[in-house]
């Protein structure tokens, strides 16, 4: 089980690899420009979340997101629940 942080946009090869290699028991959190991934239908078995503040800051509304939007407080809860962290 790992918490995977994605901070770059959809054209970033390393982020593509991180999302592609995530497993069902993993969790992916989209932050900064990584929230652009939240506009796509992601092909991953992992649970995907996006930081709400960063998503709204880029001019989108909550209905535009195809993943769960979370606060920083909820991010800390995820951080507590996962032992491994991949930044």
């Amino acid at each position, binding site marked *: 089980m790992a918490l995977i*942080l994605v*901070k770059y946009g959809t054209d970033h090869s390393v982020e593509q690899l991180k999302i592609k290699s995530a497993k069902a028991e993993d969790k992916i959190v989209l*932050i*900064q420009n990584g929230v652009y991934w939240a506009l796509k239908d992601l092909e991953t078995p992992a649970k995907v979340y996006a930081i709400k*503040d960063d998503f709204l800051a880029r001019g989108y509304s909550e209905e535009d997101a195809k993943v769960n939007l979370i*606060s*920083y*407080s909820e*991010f*800390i809860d995820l*951080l*507590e629940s996962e032992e491994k*962290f991949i*930044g």
Partner: protein
Amino acid sequence: MKIGIQVMVPPYTYEDLDTAMKIAEAALEKGHEVTLFLFADSVICTNKNIKPLRIDRNIPQKLIEMSKKGKFEVHICGICMDYRGITPNMIIEGSKPSGLPELANLIATCDRFISLMA
């Protein structure tokens, strides 16, 4: 829980320091302990002479306020400071020059380590 956060990019140009501070604030509110380790150009944010426009966020001031509340430490890579001409008398209250041995110790002792490296 002890959380370590590492940043390397400069403030205001990139978003990593803003992200690190928001994560740290949320963690502190939940009673966790946070150490922010500043590496490479991120050390610039500890220069107390930084004066952003009044409408913008003041990152050094925010770090001072967070460290005053306790359970929050700012460690600055000493070699990175030297490279950028930042002397100990220039850095904000609540921060301290540190180094790679301290970073290694932080990684070994913290419960979660968040790397916001490039």
